[in-house]
C-alpha cells in the first residue's frame, strides 16, 4: 500500500517523464490525499449523527479540519521547501493513513456503533478526556515521572557502582557474584510483600521496586563489561605510570561503556514494566494508578488516553537514552 502511495506521490517514485511532470513537481500529491482523508474524518465527525454521544466532537472535528487545511497548504508549499520539504514528503503515506484511520475509527465507534461503548471510544472521546481531565492527568504524569526518575536513577547509580566493583575487584566478585546470580533472576515484583515490611512508606517501596528492576541488568552488564576489558589496555596504563584509580576511571569505565548501555536499555524497559505495578502499591496519583482507577469505573476512553500518554513518555525517554548513547559512544562508530 505504501509503495503504491509513494508512486502516486511522484516525488519518490520513478515515473517516466510525461507532460504532467511539471504539474507533479508543482503539487505534492500525497499532501492533497492526506488533506482529503483528514477532511473526510472531520466531515464524518460533524456531518453524521452519533449513535452514542461522546464529548469533544466539535473540537475534534475542528482540529482534524485544521490538519486538513495545513496539508492542503503543504501540498503546494512542500515542493518549494527543498530538504525540509523532502523530509515532510517522506511521511506523506503516514499522513494519509492516519487520516483514513481517524475517519474509520470515528465511523465504527460513534457513528455506527459497531464497536460498542464502553470498551471502545471514538477519537473525540480520547480528546474529551484530555480536555476535561487535564489537571489530573498532568498531576499523574508528574507523579509517574517522579517515581520513575527516582527509582531508575538511584537503581542505575547503585547498579553501576556495584557493577564496576564486581568487575574490577576479585574479592568483591567472590562474595558478590553468587548473590547477584541468585537474586538477579527474581522478578522485581516478587519483592513487593517484603518491601512493605522494610520501607516506611509505600512510595519508598515503589521507588525500591523500580530501582531494583533497573539496577540489576545495569549491575550485570557493567560487571561483565569491566571484566572483559582488553588486558592490554591496563598494561599500557600501568606502563605509562597510571594509578589504580586512573585504570578504573579512565580505562575500565570508558572501555565498558558499550556494555553499560546495553544494561541501561534493559533496565529502562524493566523499569517501565514494573512502574505500573509499583503505582498500584497504594499510590494516590500516577499514570498506572489512573489506569487502574478508570478501569474499575469502565472509563475506557480514559484508559486509552492514558496509554497513549505512557507510550509517548516511554518512547521519549528511550529516545533520550539513544541520543546519550550516540553522543557518548561516537568513538565506536567503526565497530557498529
Amino acid at each position, binding site marked *: 500500500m505504501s509503495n503504491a502511495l509513494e508512486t502516486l506521490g511522484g516525488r519518490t517514485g520513478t515515473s517516466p517523464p510525461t507532460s504532467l511532470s511539471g504539474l507533479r513537481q508543482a503539487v505534492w500529491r500525497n499532501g492533497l490525499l492526506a488533506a482529503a482523508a483528514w477532511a473526510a474524518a472531520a466531515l464524518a465527525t460533524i456531518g453524521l449523527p452519533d449513535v452514542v454521544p461522546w464529548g469533544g466532537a466539535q473540537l475534534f472535528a475542528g482540529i482534524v479540519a485544521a490538519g486538513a487545511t495545513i496539508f492542503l497548504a503543504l501540498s503546494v508549499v512542500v515542493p518549494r521547501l527543498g530538504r525540509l520539504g523532502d523530509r515532510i514528503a517522506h511521511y506523506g503515506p503516514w499522513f494519509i493513513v492516519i487520516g483514513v484511520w481517524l475517519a474509520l475509527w470515528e465511523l465504527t465507534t460513534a457513528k455506527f456503533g459497531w464497536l460498542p461503548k464502553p470498551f471502545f471510544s471514538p477519537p473525540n472521546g480520547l480528546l474529551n478526556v484530555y480536555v476535561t481531565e487535564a489537571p489530573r492527568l498532568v498531576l499523574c504524569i508528574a507523579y509517574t515521572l517522579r517515581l520513575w526518575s527516582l527509582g531508575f536513577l538511584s537503581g542505575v547509580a547503585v547498579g553501576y557502582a556495584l557493577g564496576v566493583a564486581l568487575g574490577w575487584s576479585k574479592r568483591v566478585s567472590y562474595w558478590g557474584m553468587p548473590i547477584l546470580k541468585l537474586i538477579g533472576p527474581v522478578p522485581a515484583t516478587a519483592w513487593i510483600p517484603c518491601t512493605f515490611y522494610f520501607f516506611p512508606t509505600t512510595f519508598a517501596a515503589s521507588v525500591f521496586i523500580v530501582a531494583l528492576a533497573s539496577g540489576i541488568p545495569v549491575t550485570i552488564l557493567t560487571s561483565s563489561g569491566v571484566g572483559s576489558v582488553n588486558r592490554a589496555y591496563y598494561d599500557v596504563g600501568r*606502563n605509562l605510570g597510571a594509578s589504580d584509580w586512573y585504570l578504573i576511571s579512565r580505562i575500565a569505565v570508558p572501555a565498558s561503556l558499550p556494555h553499560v548501555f546495553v544494561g541501561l536499555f534493559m533496565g529502562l524497559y524493566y523499569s517501565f514494566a514494573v512502574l505500573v505495578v509499583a503505582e498500584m502499591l497504594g499510590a494516590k496519583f500516577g499514570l498506572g494508578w489512573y489506569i487502574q482507577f478508570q478501569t474499575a469505573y469502565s472509563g475506557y476512553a480514559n484508559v486509552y488516553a492514558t496509554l497513549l500518554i505512557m507510550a509517548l513518555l516511554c518512547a521519549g525517554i528511550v529516545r533520550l537514552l539513544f541520543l546519550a548513547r550516540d553522543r557518548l559512544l561516537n568513538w565506536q562508530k567503526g565497530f557498529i
Partner: protein
Amino acid sequence: MAGAATALRQERPAQSVAVELRGVSHNFDLGGSRLAVLNVIDLSVAAGEFIALLGPSGCGKSTLLRLISGLEQPSAGSIAADGEPINGPDPSRILVFQDPTLFPWATVWNNVATGLNARGVLNQQRARVDATLDLVGLRVFKGAYPHQLSGGMAQRAALARALVNDPALLLLDEPLGKLDSLTRLSLQGELVALWRKAGFTAILVTHDVEEALLLASRVIVLSERPARIRAEFQVDRPYPRHRDDPELVALRRQVLSTLGLAT
C-alpha cells in the same frame, strides 16, 4: 625528564639506560602444569644500544620484553636498569605492542597524552603532545579516533604515546609485524631516525631477519622454547642502511643458518 617542556624535535642530550639480565628464567603456570619459557638468559645491553631479538615464533621473546618492562616478574634471576633492580612498570621503560592498543574511546591526541595525564603533568606539558605528534607526522589526525586511522598511522600514534614520555628504554614487541610491506619499510626508516635523534636504548623483538639487520646494532638469536641465547651478531654498519649492502646480505645468510633456515 627535567626540562621536558622543550620540543622533542630539538636535539637533547642522549638519555638512555643500560639493561642487565642475570640468569633470568621464567615459567608460565598453565592450570597446574608449568611451562618453562625462558631458560637462564644473561644479557647486557649498553646505554643507547639498539638490540634486536630474533627467534622462532612462540619462543618467549615477548615474555622477555614484558619482564624487562616490569609488567611481570621473572621466576628466577634478576633484571636491572642502570644497576637498579626492576620491580614494576615505569614510564621510563615503555613497551610498544604489535597491536597499537590505542584506547578506542579517546582521540589520537588524548591517546598520546595518556602517560602525561596519568602522572598528572599534562597541563604543564601539553606542548609536548603536539610536538610528538609532529614528530610522527600525525598532527593533522590529532582529533581523529583510532578506528579512523590506517594500521601504519595507528602504530605511529602508539609510538608517539610512548615517546612523549621521553623513555630511556623503548621495548618494541614486533611493532611493525602487522603492517603492509610498504608501510613497514617507511616505518623502519622512521624508527631508526627516532632512535638516533632521541638516543634511547631500544630492544626490538621481531622475526624478520632483514628488519633486525637494518635497525639493530646487535642481533641476539634465541633458541626454541624454553629460550636460551643461541648466537649474537654485531652489526657494525653505518645508518641509514640499505638492504642490499653486501655485508648485511652475508650477515643475513649467517643469521638464517643459525635459525636453521639456510638458503
